């Protein structure tokens, strides 16, 4: 059986039917990593022994009647900022090459307790910000749709591993778009849940009040299954919210009939760098949603530039506070892009930072006001397809092609969903929901997945 295209749910069905074992799933995935990763650099560490131990344990449990749920026996991988007990966690940085945590991050522990099979640790931009770079201890991950193109960051290895069909789900983190951006540029689903929905404990911070943990996956259902495992209150994470977690798969197939959807068109339509194919993809998606029974209307939000400014100031200030001591004493141990971005945090004054927090309040209120009239928003994830490595873009500049940071600033759940190809590279849309209403985001994302026909688009093919 070729297992590379089995969804998480289908793997679960095959495991319970006895037509495949967790060990076979793990060995197949490890073989794909061995064959494909040397050219793509998704993994910084493959944990083969751990994977086979996890898989055998999952098989033994099922044989003895202990079923840990939909993630039981499913291979996955972690961005290398997630602490893993006894397994090196580098943040893709020279500064943490020897870091071996004593304990798992909450996310790693939950996936393990749910019966998941850890394949390894994945490339990231350094400290989830600096990249893609060639001056770091590991090479940058490459885009499986065209390895001359970048994946977007910072969950770069996560996107590469899934788009190259090595693994069905990988964890990312999202401070300004680091889940949704790579998902958009690699033709994947990537959800940033509501701030506080998933514990960040044991994940190296980039910016405490913007950091979110979430999965990237091949389809919406994979992400819904994964978030079901991860969501929930963690009293030891100061930002964790004690909010009930619904069944994320219960409404997946309900369609969009009756939903009211707002499009903040000025966000993307007036952007200088937007590609016509991206605009066409959003308009096509809006028309399909209307045809499927949703009410879809253009809305007005505050200027995108204000969201971007608030997000960048908050991120740079908080990041510099985290890295201040190392920046003062070991600046040259950081990659050049990382040091440039972190260093700017030193130029932010107290007044700048406070104004950014005041803007955050204004912007959160504005998005909430829109979501009192609409069930969800539809907008761009990325304004362009993935750039080439030799035509770099500054993802932190005011002209960055990602449109993801507004919902880090406001904390709303947001998901990137692929809708087509432009010149052989994926284009996507972004779905934004009310706080803690990931269920509607999944429901709408699933409808878009069906309406766009994305599931019939052939992914890049690799030997092995």
């Amino acid at each position, binding site marked *: 059986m070729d297992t590379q295209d089995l969804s998480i749910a289908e793997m679960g069905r095959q495991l319970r039917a006895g037509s495949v074992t967790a060990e076979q799933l793990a060995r197949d995935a490890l073989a794909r990593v061995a064959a494909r990763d040397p050219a793509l650099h998704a993994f910084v560490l493959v944990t083969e022994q751990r994977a086979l131990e996890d898989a055998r344990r999952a098989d033994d449990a099922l044989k003895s009647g202990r079923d840990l749920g939909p993630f039981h026996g499913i291979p996955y991988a972690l961005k290398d900022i997630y602490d893993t007990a006894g397994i090196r966690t580098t943040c893709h940085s020279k500064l943490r090459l020897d870091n071996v945590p004593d304990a798992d991050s909450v996310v790693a522990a939950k996936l393990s307790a749910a019966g998941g099979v850890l394949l390894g640790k994945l490339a990231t931009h350094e400290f989830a910000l600096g990249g893609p770079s060639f001056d770091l201890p590991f090479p940058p991950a490459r885009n499986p749709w065209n390895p001359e193109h970048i994946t977007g960051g910072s969950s770069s290895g996560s996107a590469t591993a899934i788009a190259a069909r090595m693994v069905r789900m990988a964890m990312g983190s999202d401070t300004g778009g680091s889940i949704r951006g790579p998902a958009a540029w690699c033709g994947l689903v990537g959800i940033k849940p509501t*701030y*506080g929905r998933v514990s960040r404990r044991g994940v190296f911070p980039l910016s405490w*009040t913007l950091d979110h943990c979430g999965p990237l996956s091949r389809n919406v259902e994979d992400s819904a299954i994964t978030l079901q495992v991860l969501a929930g209150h963690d009293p030891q994470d100061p*930002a964790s*919210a004690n909010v009930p977690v619904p069944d994320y798969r219960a409404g997946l197939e309900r369609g969009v009939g009756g939903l009211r959807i707002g499009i903040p068109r000025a966000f993307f339509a007036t952007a200088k760098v937007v590609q016509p194919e991206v605009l066409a993809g959003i308009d096509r998606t809006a028309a399909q949603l209307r045809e499927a029974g949703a009410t879809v209307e253009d809305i007005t939000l505050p200027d995108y*530039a*204000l969201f*971007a*400014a*608030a997000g*960048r*100031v908050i991120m*740079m200030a908080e990041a*510099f506070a985290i890295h*201040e001591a190392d*920046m*003062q004493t070991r*600046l*040259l141990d950081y990659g*050049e892009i990382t*040091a*440039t*971005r972190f*260093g*700017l945090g*030193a*130029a*932010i004054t107290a*007044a*700048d930072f*406070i*104004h*950014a*927090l*005041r*803007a*955050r*309040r*204004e912007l*959160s*209120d504005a998005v*909430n*006001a829109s*979501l*009192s*009239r609409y*069930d969800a928003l539809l907008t761009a994830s990325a304004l362009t397809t993935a750039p080439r490595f030799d035509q770099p873009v*500054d993802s*932190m*500049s*005011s002209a960055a092609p990602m449109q993801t940071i507004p919902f880090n600033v*406001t*904390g709303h759940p947001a998901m990137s969903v692929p809708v087509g190809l432009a010149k052989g590279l994926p284009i996507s849309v972004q779905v934004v929901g*009310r*706080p803690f*209403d990931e269920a*509607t985001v999944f429901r709408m994302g699933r409808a878009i997945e069906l309406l766009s026909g994305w599931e019939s688009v052939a992914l890049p093919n690799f030997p092995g």
Partner: protein
Amino acid sequence: MPETPAPDELAAEFDMLMRRAGLSIPDARRSAMLTAYADLREQIALLHGRYGAVHEPSNVFRMTPAGDK
């Protein structure tokens, strides 16, 4: 926030801020950082002069209930 200064004044401001933060920026990296600083400064300017005294910052987040759900 003052208007964006002339390039040499901007560079002097940047150098002062880096010194104040205890950062020694190598010459080879200074130009890229200065360009990024100029862009950041323009973004920061958007945030100034926008709010009156009663406009408080969000402490962490402001998750006001939205809609009827």
